[in-house]
């Protein structure tokens, strides 16, 4: 127990002298790094605009309220497109994620040395790039539109779904698999009767969870030209139609809240 001598009396302390020195140095380095970063940011900031910000914010607020409610009639189709991008993207991603997950899981991969690293690489590289960047890329390749959005959402979701799924596969109860194997089942039968039933609840949960996230992401994909409600947002922003912008933001907010509610309900029913 670390103690400190104080006028001949031992007093309890949380850390030894060496430990507190270490902590102190860590804090010093951390604060120095933060100070440097802050300096870098403030060096390229036009502070005049920042001091002016409250007035600008107030100005935007007065322009944006009240929202132009009549505009909502034109938002039906973009919302449908957004929903399609999220749903079809999720379905496509799940179809592609299942084989990747089986190849990446330690207990089902055909080869630990060669195939597993490739599967993990697919997972990491699709996960680490945002769907907006994928959309940007796909628009350059296959042209603007909802289809590019679907593919962007799908690619982005593969890594996420496959990662969660392969972790679920690695955590299965091995005794059931052994029992099926002991009946003389083939490799595929073991998969269908020993592994798949164990991971189905996790799979359904992942699907709904990712669908919820994809609804959020697809609302903004239009900003780079991939269709959906983001397209309306971007064109309203370009012509500074703030009442339309505020209505679109409200619609997006509603969509996000509803999708989160649906996903929570479904996941509650499964688990």
């Amino acid at each position, binding site marked *: 127990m670390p103690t400190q001598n104080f006028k001949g009396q031992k007093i309890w302390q949380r850390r030894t002298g060496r430990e507190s020195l270490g902590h102190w140095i860590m804090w010093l380095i951390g604060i120095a790094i933060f100070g440097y970063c802050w300096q870098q*940011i403030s060096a390229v*900031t036009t502070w005049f605009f920042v001091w002016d910000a409250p007035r600008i914010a107030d100005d935007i607020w007065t322009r944006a309220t009240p929202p132009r409610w009549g505009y909502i009639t034109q938002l039906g189709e973009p919302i449908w497109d957004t929903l399609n991008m999220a749903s079809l993207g999720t379905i496509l991603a799940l179809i592609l994620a299942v084989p990747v997950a089986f190849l990446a899981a330690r207990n089902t991969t055909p080869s630990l040395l060669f195939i597993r690293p490739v599967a993990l690489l697919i997972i990491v590289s699709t996960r680490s790039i945002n769907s*907006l960047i994928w959309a940007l890329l796909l628009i*350059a*390749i*296959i042209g603007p539109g909802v289809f590019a959005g679907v593919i962007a959402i799908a690619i982005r979701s593969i890594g996420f779904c496959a990662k969660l799924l392969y972790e679920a596969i690695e955590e299965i109860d091995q005794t059931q698999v052994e029992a099926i194997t002991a009946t003389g089942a083939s490799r595929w039968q073991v998969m269908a009767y020993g592994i798949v039933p164990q991971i189905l609840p996790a799979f359904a949960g992942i699907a709904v969870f990712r669908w919820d996230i994809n609804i959020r992401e697809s609302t903004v994909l239009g*900003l780079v030209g991939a269709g959906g409600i983001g397209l309306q947002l971007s064109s309203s922003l370009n012509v500074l139609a703030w009442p339309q912008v505020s209505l679109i933001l409200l619609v997006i907010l509603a969509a996000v809240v509803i999708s989160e509610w649906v996903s929570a309900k479904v996941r509650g029913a499964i688990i």
Partner: protein
Amino acid sequence: MSEVEALIGKPWRKLPFIKRPWLRRTFILGFIVYLIAAYMTIDVNWYRVYEGLERGKKFVLAFTNPDFTTRSSDIYEGMVESIVMTIAASVVGIAISIPIALGAARNIAPLPVYLICRSVIAVSRALQEIIVAILLVAIFGFGPLAGFLTLSFATIGFLSKLLAEDIESMDKVQAEAIKASGAKWAQWINYGVQPQVMPRLIGLSIYRIDINFRESAILGLVGAGGIGATLNTAFDRYEYDTAAAILLIIIVIVMALEYLSGVIRARVQ
């Protein structure tokens, strides 16, 4: 019924995932109807897609031959700005989210404080980074300051919510023991609550730094600083080799961060 079935009974069948048959059928039917409806409304210009395959091939090939040198100064500046934004925003975001997490834990905070903190979290989680960034760029002007504020704001919602949940599920006995020794409120938090949630806080913080870096890569698309602007320009000019180089750098940094977070989380837990 065949003769064999009459002798040995019906063979075993796999149980369906959804047990009620009418619910299962409605699900499947609704799903198919939706798929058809969705497919009808998406008009895919297959000719355009076919034309694009050539460019897609070029892009994939660019990954084997990324160009780090031609635009090296742009890439370097963008990357540094992204990293600087990430670090500063993570520090500020984490510092703000700790008091909010304390306020949003029902076993620590009184009801009014709880409601206020929970609504802050709800607002921060409902708004996506990119939308917040658009608004903040309109208000504060172009540059990394808007990105920094966006990421800080997003960090608050994420970290406070998960940390508050951890505080709510902590072991009450330890906290009570500290209280019984006559500790003040701050001492109670420092010695009774903080040691219990510290491993989770560190793990979440590192995870959030990882997310913040990934998000900082797209904030440049709307003018909020970082590597996104360089990437956008590279795509617009069809400089796939430069774009591939930027994407590779992002992937490598994210992988490194993920590896680091794994090591640190294994150490603190």
